[in-house]
């Protein structure tokens, strides 16, 4: 008899909700104060050359990933993308803290109140959350599909 593990899919749901919450909040913050966001990244030595591209790309990626995470069929891809994006954010902060000659100001609403090293920890935590989501998520199968051993497997 296949064991039904409700807590696992519940965990995945929670993980996806957390990621959606984070990305939507962060994206809205950037878009609502768009000029300020552009000015802030314009001062970052790593990305100051690509302000027009990045200022558009980051919030739209965040929204897009959030939408993908909402659809059960494509969730797993959303989790991979979320992991990659969070990893890039984490590496970016790590880079600024170690190699940059100066620290540009941070952006992101409530996250503004975090210091840069706290922000690093926060981003790293979310990277791990997305990562664990990819391991916890079970492949999406449409309803009432029987497995090879003939048992009923409901959803994922």
């Amino acid at each position: 008899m296949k064991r039904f593990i409700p807590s696992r899919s519940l965990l995945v749901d929670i993980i996806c909700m957390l990621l959606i919450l984070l990305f939507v909040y962060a994206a809205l913050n950037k878009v609502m104060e768009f000029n300020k966001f552009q000015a802030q990244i314009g001062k970052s030595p790593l990305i100051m050359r690509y302000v027009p591209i990045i200022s558009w790309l980051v919030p739209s990626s965040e929204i897009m990933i959030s939408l993908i995470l909402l659809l059960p069929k494509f969730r797993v891809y959303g989790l991979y993308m979320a992991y990659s994006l969070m990893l890039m954010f984490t590496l970016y902060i790590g880079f600024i803290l170690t190699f940059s000659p100066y620290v540009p100001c941070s952006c992101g609403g409530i996250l503004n109140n975090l210091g840069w090293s706290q922000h690093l920890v926060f981003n790293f935590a979310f990277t791990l959350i997305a990562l664990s989501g990819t391991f916890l998520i079970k492949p999406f199968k449409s309803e009432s599909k029987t497995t090879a051993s003939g048992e009923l497997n409901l959803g994922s």
Partner: protein
Amino acid sequence: MNTKQNIIIVVLCTIASVCVIVALYAISPLTEGVYRGSFKRNLIYTPLVSLSELNLGVNSFYIAGIDDSRIYLGNYTAPLHMLSTNHQLLDSQHVRLELGLDSVQSFQRFRLSVDSPFFFLTHGIMPEYLRGHLGIWKATRLFPSAKDYSSEAQPINTGSLIMKSLSTETKSLELAIKTGAHPLRFNNSLLNKQVDGIFCLDGKLLYDKAKAQIVYIHYYRNEFLVADTSLNLILRSHTIDTFSRAAIKLSKKLSGGESMLAAPPVKINTNGAVYNSKLFVVSSLLSRTEDMHDFLTNTVIDIYDTSENRYVKSIYIPDKGSDKVSSLAVYKDKLIAITGNYINIYDIPEEIIN
């Protein structure tokens, strides 16, 4: 999919993310060399002689003033803590200054300035301008009920202050003089705006006590000006570099009427000191034929004669580790510099004084 497939995909994602960040770094300005200007420097290569050195223990001190017997240091993180030494950097005395005020805002904003026999504590935002006697150490208000906001305030003579303040007339920063209870008297013709009148005019106000003159150095352009203590312009001149326009990029309109830089500004002149018409300007630019390594391991100072309006020579002050000179002062034939945690007194080469 199983765990093994998952791990492979995760590893691929990780590599991709790392590659993106590494690629951003590789094409960023951080991998470009140091900019080399087209101007030439007349450098004195013989190293400066350090006559005395003192380890201050912290890097938060700045030179607040000098008189015939002592050197006075203020502290950025402890504004009421004054340290004074004699001219051999011995006999150091720590004093806690007393502030004759009932309430205080943004306490760390107070700046110490010493013009014997007085010391001054100025705060351009509250705003408060206080003065006390050296030896008695209690500072009281200079101007009873003034609301003169300033971004810089330099005491001259014994009761007046030269201030850099926002003019309601020109809507940009201007130099003004405050004497006693009289209102702030502006001279709007001294500072000329190029971009926004606030960021682009950023600079340092210096007082040449020996000549009773004010010197203003612009941070983002190659201009400095000399005026007397009534703010009459004596000289408007240029530093040896070629940057005549401030490379300031402002953000587009922000909510709340804020103004923000949208790119790091190109700082040309970063600090300065003046004594008896010899103006010492700390430059951040590498000159045409200068050795790159020397430039990176020293703080370069260009020296000008304000009475003859000419460039004299340039000297190097050695860095201490990765620390460059953070505070500079000149008194007679001595150059006093704070580099990292250390304060040094250097002998100014003969050829510069004459």
